[in-house]
């Protein structure tokens, strides 16, 4: 899976491209954990190119979210497709983390200090 990463001000935007299955989840986890280790605790995950996610990916996102908040930051997700949104709702992840329609909104939420939980 291709994962791109860019920095916008104080926010790191990570964009995975493709299916986040068990194997790809390990790759995504590495990228996110490395960003955290490098001091980037304000993270937006742009999900616009993610067509599929399984529980391994969800587990990684939950762990990264906790670590971001422990370090005074947060992680926000953006642009989930309908099927991924349904998976999030089944597990209750829509209550755990902020989900916005676009990455730009998520980035803006960081600068305005919008509440971390919906």
């Amino acid at each position, binding site marked *: 899976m291709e994962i791109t990463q860019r920095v916008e001000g104080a926010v790191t935007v990570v964009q995975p491209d493709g299916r986040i*299955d*068990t*194997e790809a989840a390990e790759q995504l986890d590495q990228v996110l954990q490395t960003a955290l280790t490098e001091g980037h605790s304000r993270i937006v995950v742009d999900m616009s190119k993610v067509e*599929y996610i399984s*529980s391994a990916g969800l587990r990684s996102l*939950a762990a990264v979210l906790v670590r971001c908040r422990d370090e005074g930051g947060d992680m926000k997700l953006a642009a989930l497709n309908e099927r991924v949104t349904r*998976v999030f709702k*089944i*597990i*209750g992840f829509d209550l755990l983390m902020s989900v916005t329609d676009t990455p730009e909104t998520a980035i803006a939420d960081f600068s305005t200090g919008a509440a971390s939980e919906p």
Partner: protein
Amino acid sequence: MPDELRAEATIENVRRISDFVRDKGRRLGLPDDVLFDIDLAVEEASTNIVRHAYEPGQEGDIQVRIEAVDGDIRITLTDWGQPFEADAAYLAVDVPVEVRAEGGMGVLLIHKLMDEVTRITAAAPGGSNELTMVKHIGR
């Protein structure tokens, strides 16, 4: 006519099983939404078998069988390891999401995405455990 694939129970082969099921589903002309649900349920169930059915270092197989029966899609996953009997524990509705994230998300997804989930566990060690998942199509 059912299609079957049997492979060693490894994480690498979970992707192979997923590809096999998606390919068969496409050939059956399944709608994308149905394909997504089946795909995810199969990955979750296969991953659970790979991680929990066999002891560390113990080799074992996983088999997937997919067939269209009377307007249903029926998928059976078979292993020859330790039976998995904990579905109920993971399906409680009042589990906080933080706890759910620690384990049990896969089982919950399987039950929510598929219409029928049945387990037949081995009567004796070394026997086969079968997980059958059914998705109703067009009802």
